[in-house]
């Protein structure tokens, strides 16, 4: 029953993909030249006006482009021409650094907030105020103080990853079942060991949910941040290809960004399953 549902769903997905690809292909194929123009002017207008062919690439163009990127993802021909793999590696690197820093701050701070009602109340107004700020709003401040565009992007990732992890950690720690804590107390387990043997495992599912939200947001934000600061990264790559009017590359990037985002999410989902426990 279950297998057959999966099979049917897979077939429907494939069908949707084919219909979409076909519609796309038809929509962008040319209808023949419509008028004769001065060649100089035609060159300015591009192929759309001249041949009736859409400037929008078709699925075949995109597939060809993906194949060419896949064959040589890591070439480096100067600052404006690097392989998509190199650009992705830059972005993933920034995300992982900013994200790891956020973990190192959010987990201990979240524990503190979750365990101490005083700190929880004291820090609440700051968190409430900072949480809704778009991480990109920090960019000018980061550029001004750090004076390095790459590190500023990392900082922005740090800031946007921080809040979901912090809030979930604090919540998870604060809502650990009292009886589990009491078990540790009656066994004279010290605060430090209790934090690692009872509170951390009990709160882990909630914490990992926060981490999963964070990695999703970080991957959304890195594209925008790199568009702003430029230089390297998949965000910069998208913007650069837009300036080159290479829509094929833009579409390719969109697919690749989606793919990496999905993999990051799946990785955290896997961690989540590993730390979850049935009650």
């Amino acid at each position, binding site marked *: 029953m279950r297998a057959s549902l999966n099979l049917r769903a897979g077939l429907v997905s494939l069908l949707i993909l084919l219909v979409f690809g076909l519609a796309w292909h038809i929509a962008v194929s040319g209808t023949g030249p419509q008028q004769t123009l001065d060649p100089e002017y035609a060159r300015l207008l591009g192929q759309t006006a001249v041949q009736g062919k859409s400037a929008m690439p078709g699925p075949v163009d995109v597939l060809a482009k993906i194949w060419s990127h896949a064959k040589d993802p890591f070439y480096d021909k100067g600052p404006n021409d690097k392989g998509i793999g190199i650009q992705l590696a830059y972005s993933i690197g920034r995300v992982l650094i900013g994200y790891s820093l956020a973990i190192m701050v959010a987990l201990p701070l979240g524990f503190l907030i979750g365990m101490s009602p005083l700190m929880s109340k004291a820090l609440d107004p700051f968190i409430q105020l900072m949480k809704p700020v778009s991480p990109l709003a920090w960019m000018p401040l980061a550029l001004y103080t750090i004076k390095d565009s790459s590190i500023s992007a990392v900082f922005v990732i740090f800031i946007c990853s921080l809040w979901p992890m912090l809030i979930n950690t604090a919540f998870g720690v604060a809502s650990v079942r009292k*009886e589990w804590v009491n078990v540790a107390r*009656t*066994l*004279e*387990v010290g605060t430090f060991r209790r934090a690692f043997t009872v509170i951390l*495992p*009990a709160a882990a599912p909630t914490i990992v949910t926060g981490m999963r939200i964070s990695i999703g947001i970080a991957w959304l934000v890195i594209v925008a941040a790199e568009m702003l600061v430029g230089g390297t990264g998949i965000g910069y790559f998208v913007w650069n290809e837009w300036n080159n009017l290479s829509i094929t590359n833009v579409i390719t990037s969109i697919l690749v960004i989606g793919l990496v985002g999905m993999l990051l999410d799946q990785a955290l989902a896997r961690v989540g399953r590993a*730390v979850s426990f049935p*009650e």
Partner: protein
Amino acid sequence: MSGSGSTPVNSDKFISIEGIARHFAAPGGGQTTVFRDIWFAIPKGEFVCMIGHSGCGKTTVLNILSGLDLPDEGVAVVDGRAIEGPSLDRAVIFQSHALLPWRTVLGNVAYAVSSKWRDWSRAKIEEHAKKFIEKVGLKGSEGKKPAQLSGGMKQRVGIARALSIEPKILLMDEPFSALDALTRGTLQDEVRRICLETGQTVFMITHDVDEAIYLADKIILMTNGPEAMVAEIVENPLPKDRDRNQIHKHPSFYAIRNHLIDFLVTRSKTFKNEIPPDYDRRKPPIVRPQAQPLPVPPPEANGRKVA
């Protein structure tokens, strides 16, 4: 067990509750006194049950004995020292079993063992834990997670965990109340056997009169709350080596059973209004219900749960 009701000598006061009171903030401001000026003592090696209606403060007393809660007035003394916090000398079996769901059966028991003997090797800890898992009849389930166990098995793990640290005192808060009658009976037998073997001092809360008669040496009767008090301490007239299928034939069985039920049904409410003139909070009266000269066993001999 001297049981004469005379002034207890010091060895009879292994656990001594001395004038404890506990207040909680009342919902509408002010505070409610759950109980105050409670006194009783438990000698070493005795199995003592506490019976009383819901909300009279039994769990609160047990929490004070475990050290998870502190009295607002008075002290709880164990082995000559006031309780200031939880201790590995006093193991608690929680009503809701309170197993750590991310650990296996072995992991749960080993956690307790490793907390008590911190320098033991992993192999030694597991060997010790397995011994107690076997003792409660769970051999073969060491690798299971609590979610894979039945209610009775979970409670068994809780018992194994408590016993594994070889505590001086075992504290149990209605450990069997969530179980079906058959499982409850089996577990009562096992707990009784283990406690007799080791001469364990036990304080147990129960709602079940028959459970108290089967297990207890003494039964502490609490009146209804708020401001609950210890009405009396009932000595169990049944011999220590009792058989659950034979105890109802003992001439004093219905005497104690009727006495307890009578207390729960009526006297727990009325006791406060008709306190006997010689009642002393520091020395609650000790009674020993005995068979009447001509016992007439009531027909409904198998009633079980009261309250």
